Structure formats: C-alpha cells, structure tokens
C-alpha cells in the first residue's frame, strides 16, 4: 500500500535508541511524518526527537499522553491540534494554530509563535518565549478541573483573548522597554470568562473587559506560571514579577444577554 511504503520510506530516517527515537524529517511529507509518529506510539518509546522540521503540520495530534517530543526546526500550522497530553518542546519558532483545541499536555517554544496560539484550548499549557501573533487564546475555555494556561514571554497582537471563556492568559513583555505599551488592540473583545495577566500597559481594550488590581490569589497563580516559564528559558522569575501587572477580567459572563427582544 502507498501509505505503508511511505512509512517504510520514512523509517529510513529513523534511529531507535532504547526508548528514544530520533527522526530526520528532511523532505518528509507531514502525513508520512505523523504516520511514523503514530507507529512509534505505544511501542515503549518515551521520547522522540525530530530534527530538520520544515513546516510539517499537526505534529503531536492523535498521540498518546506519555510521549515527549523535541522538535528542532519550524513545525507547521496546528502543532498539537486536539492534543491529549504530549509534552512538546520546540527549538525554533512555531507557525499558526499552535495548540488548536488542545485538551491536555504542554508545548514549550524556544522562539516566536504565529497567530491563533491555543485557539479554543481547554486544558494543558503553552509557553512561548518571545512574541506571538494575532488572536492568542481566542475562545479558550475551562470546565471542572481543567484550566488551560498560555504564557507569552514577549508581546502579542490584536484580539488577544478574544471570546475568552476560561483559563489563564499571561503576557510578560520581557522584550519591551520599561513603561511601554503592548501594541495589541481589541484585547479581550467578547471575553466572558477566564483571566488575563499583562505586564506592561495595554493600549486598547475590548468593550467586554475591565482592568483590576491583582490580589493574593492572583499572585499565586501568576507566580507559579512565571516560575514555570522561567524554568524553561533560564530567566529570573523574581525580576519579572517585580513589575506591575494588570489583571483583565470580563465585565459579564453574559456579554450579549441583552441583545434580544422576546
């Protein structure tokens, strides 16, 4: 069969060392790469290292939750889409839709991210060392014990936290000058749940969001996320936490409740 041939072909780029798999993804089609990953899943492999990744999509989708994957290069769109628990570390930048509708797991990016980080994610954590694009955390949500978190080390663009229904979204602005503002506009438009913590000023807020002072519980949540963030990138958490943060919360859990005539 064609697909099996492709996997066998892909296997030529595979080296197995005990429970670690090394893959050279040079020239590999995303479908073949992901089939290869699925074929390794559940065979005693615990760690997969993929090098020379150039835009292959959907890495981490439909894999078991005990795996950890190290990616060298630039994974393509929808990294970890619908992911249910894999730990992914990206040594490079990620493209759009990283963590799309992710349920569980962790993505740590040593670089920048494109648009739509964590679209509709419901669980797990995403850490981006540098900047991220538009609509980070759009429609992320929480329920019962699941509370997703996204931490952006740099800044993020317009519609940050749009339609946000739950979870925690942190933007640290570590690469910004002291006292400067994030450029993002329409931050929290349509937000109806969850919390954003933003270090540095916010230039333009959506209508459905209000700014509050952080209380002790907020500092606990923020502190633990910043600690974890800094542990991945060798940064000083205390120094980051010294600065002033603003807390953004929705004005109402029912932003559009008065639109209708009955």
């Amino acid at each position: 069969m064609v697909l099996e041939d492709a996997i066998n072909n892909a296997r030529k780029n595979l080296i197995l060392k005990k429970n670690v798999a090394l893959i050279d993804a040079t020239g590999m089609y995303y479908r073949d790469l992901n089939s290869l990953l699925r074929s390794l899943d559940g065979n005693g492999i615990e760690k997969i290292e993929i090098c020379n990744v150039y835009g292959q999509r959907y890495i981490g989708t439909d894999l078991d939750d005990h795996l950890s994957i190290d990616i060298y290069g630039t994974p393509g769109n929808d990294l970890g889409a619908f992911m249910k628990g894999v730990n992914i570390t990206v040594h490079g930048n990620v493209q759009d839709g990283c963590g799309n509708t992710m349920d569980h797991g962790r993505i740590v990016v040593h670089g920048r991210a494109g648009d739509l980080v964590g679209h509709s994610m419901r669980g797990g954590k995403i850490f981006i060392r540098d900047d991220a694009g538009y609509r980070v955390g759009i429609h992320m949500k929480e329920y019962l014990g699941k509370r997703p978190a996204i931490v952006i080390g740099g800044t993020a663009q317009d519609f940050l936290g749009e339609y946000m229904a739950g979870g925690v979204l942190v933007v640290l602005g570590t690469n910004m000058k002291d006292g400067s503002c994030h450029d993002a506009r329409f931050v929290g438009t349509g937000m109806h749940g969850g919390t954003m913590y933003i270090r540095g000023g916010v230039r333009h807020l959506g209508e459905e969001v209000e700014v509050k002072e952080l209380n002790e519980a907020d500092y606990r949540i923020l502190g633990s996320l910043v600690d974890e963030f800094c542990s991945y990138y060798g940064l000083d958490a205390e120094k980051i936490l010294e600065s002033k943060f603003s807390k953004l919360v929705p004005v109402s859990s029912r932003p559009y409740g008065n639109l209708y005539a009955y």
Partner: protein
Amino acid sequence: MKSYVTPEYIVERDQDRCIRCKVCVNQCSYDTHYYDEEDDILHSRNENCVNCQRCATFCPTQAITIRENPNHYRSNANWTQEAITSIKKQAETGGVVLTGMGCDKPNLTYWDRLLLNASQVTNPSIDPLREAMELRTYIGSKPDKLELEMEEGNGVVLKTKLAPQLQLETPIMFSAMSYGSISLNVHKSLARAASEAGTFYNTGEGGLEKSLYKYGDHVIVQVASGRFGVHPDYLDAGAAIEIKIGQGAKPGIGGHLPGEKVSEEISRTRMIPLGTDALSPAPQHDIYSIEDLRQLIYALKEATDYTKPVFVKIAAVHNSAAIASGIVRAGADAVVLDGVRGGTGAAPRIIRDNVGIPIEMALAAVDQRLRDEGIRNQASVIAAGGIKSSADVLKAIALGADAVYIATAALVSLGCTVCQKCYTGKCPWGIATTDLWLTKRINPDIGAKRLAGLLRGWSLEIMEMMGGMGINAIESVRGNRLLLRGVGLTDKELEILGVRMVGE
C-alpha cells in the same frame, strides 16, 4: 412601559366540557392557564399563549380551542400583522427579534413545483412489496477509478483503497441539533432510532453526552466555531465528523446559548463553565479561506488517523456552487447544503427569513458544478433544510443529493407543532428545552419508536415511488433529473434546476 403588542391567540374554553382537572394548567409552560378556586373556574392569559396545542392535545374533554386573535390591525398587504408587531416589540425592547424553526414565508419552496415520473406501458413498474428495493446509500469520497486484479483462488479483488464511507440503510439522516438547544431525551431518542434504522444522527455543536458514546457507530459529531465538547474522545466516538461553517436558518452568523440554559449537564458535555453564555462566533476562527478549511479538515483526519469521513456543512447562499467546489477540493468527504428553510433553535427572524437561498436551487447548482468540474465523485452531497415528506427526499436525490438530513420533521414526529418558540427554552412538548420538569415529557423509548416509525414510513413511500418509476435502486434516482418535471416555473428556474417543464 405599556406594551402595545396584542395577543396573537385567543384561548377558548367550553365551560360545559371543562371538568376542572387542571391538566391545561400543568401542561402549559408559558403560564397561560390558571385556576380560580373561589369561582371554581379555569381562565387563560391570552397574551402568554404560543399556540403549541399542548393543552388542547392533552385536555381529556377537548374543551380547549385556540384561535388566531380576530382583532387584526386593518388589513394591509405590506403592513402585515407580523411587520407591525415586530416594530412594536423592538420599540419596547431595543432588541433583535428572535424566532425558532425554519422560515415560514411562502414562495420559497420548489419541491411542490416539481413532479415525479411514473412508468406506463413502455417500461414496467415494479411492486416493492414483492421485489427487492435498494435504498442503501454510502456517504463518502468515491475513487476516480477502480483497480481490480484477478487473484488465484480469490477471483476478482479490489486493489483501490476506498476512502472511509458511512453505510445508510435509508438515505435520510437526522440533522444537527445541539444538546442544549434540545434535550438529552431527544438526543437519546434520535441516537436509538438512528441505530435501529441503520442511519445516523448528528450531535450538533453541543458535544456528545457520555451515555450516548455507545451509539457512536451511528453518530456524526460536529465541530463548530465554539468547539464545544470537541475533545479527542469525542472525535474518536463518532462515525463521521462534520465541520459546521453555516446553517440555513442563519447563514453568516453565530449563536448564543444563553447562560441560564448552561446547566451542570450541559456544562459537562459542552466542556464549558457553568452558567456562562455559550458563544458560537460567526466564523471558525481558524478558517478564513478554502486553504484554512483544508487545514481543519486534515487536522480532523489526522486526529482520527484517516478513519472517518469529514463533512463540511454550509448554508445555501448565492455562490454555493463555487464554494462547494472549493470544499470538495479542500478534501471534504461530503458537502452538506442547508437551505433557507432550514430550522434553528434560535435565530434573528430578520436573518432567518431574508438570508440564504432555497435548497432546491443550491443543490441543483452544486451538483451540476461538481459534475462540470469532474469532481462530483470526490464527495457526497447531502441536502438539508425544509424537507417535509418522502417525496421531498426523492426529489432531492433526483436533483443530485446522495442523502438528506431532516430535523424539523424528526421533531414533529416527537410532538413538535412548529410553534417557533424554541428560543424561549420552555418547549411544552419537552423538546427544545433543558428544564428537567419539561424534558421528562419525552420518553426516549417512545421517542425512538416514533422516529423509527417516521423513517420506516418514508422509506416505504420512497420505495413505492421508485417502484412506480420502474426503478429498484436509489442509485438510479441519484442526479437523474429526467425523473422530474417542473410546473409553474420560469425558463430560468427550470434551467438552474436542470429540469424540463411538465408536458415536455
């Protein structure tokens, strides 16, 4: 502010027949009836009545009659009751006028102006009671060609790897209605009926309740812009996945399930916080082009290891044919078209009645376009929105559909009277509600039987009509527009439908 809106209906009670049993009081969820103990008499608050006929149906002595309020404004072909009432309501609330179910305006249906053929003399008709009739339908992408090989001992063997297919025993499926817009008991009824009848029910965008996972082989799970309940196990549970781009009743807009309907069970199934509005944005935020659509189609295929067909549902709009071509090229296994008469649990009435095009035209245009481009085999076409009889099903298939989706018809079989008040969440028939006091009114055992009865009845009628045309397999009806003739249609309408005039 004093409301100038007058009651739409008048409740009349024959006091000679009324036995003061108060069934009407208990059955009405709009608080229309009340009992006056002092005078031992039942009264009605006309302004609350929605004419759902629940009280009239359950009144043991048939004492209740509901009439349209004869106090009409002065007759006027332009300034109708509806137009005047809407303006008054909006002046008083400053809001968008909501409604439920499908468009109720005349002149937007073509089914009734299409007539089916029958055999006379030259090609004998078939009696389905004595001869085999094939309604089985496969939904999914079909290959461009089949490669066959002779193998020793095995005879002819199919070498082409087929894309995943859904096997339907009748070309009718239950269309998307979310848990939240309708009750769990209705979902149970639909799931059971689909399993029994060998067809499929669609979850809608509200997730799949845990107890229904066991019906997964007969479930189509939907992925909409809110991504409610979309979870790896949910995607694995279904037999197919449907990406919802649009809905016939409200093309181009999203939906709001109000927070008060997000109960603990709904919260769990949608996987969202308790009591907050469940907001479905108008677009899918990762789809702004056909290329993006392809990305989501393949994300879902990757998430389920290419084992399930992926449908894409759009509202029928002006450029449906070009859009459908893009959808097929994006890799969808089926295109779902939902026409302007498609139902809804809640939509702004102005959108429901003014946006979108009839399914008949969209279906004919899409089927023709996909044929012209030589890609019709790559995806199935499913027609939805305003199918109210088995004849409509057969006409849709003759116009080019592989199968149809029904939803309003399914709810009507459960008791719905199409009163169009689904958006209130107080459905007295226990259908479009999550109020546990009301949802008990649907017993899933009885509900499944009623739905299965409807499917059986329509299937028998389809076989009768096919037999009458001398056709014994639904495959031979599919896209066979010679079986149709139009009546009362313009040349242009006939041209788009690809149908000849009666008498031709």
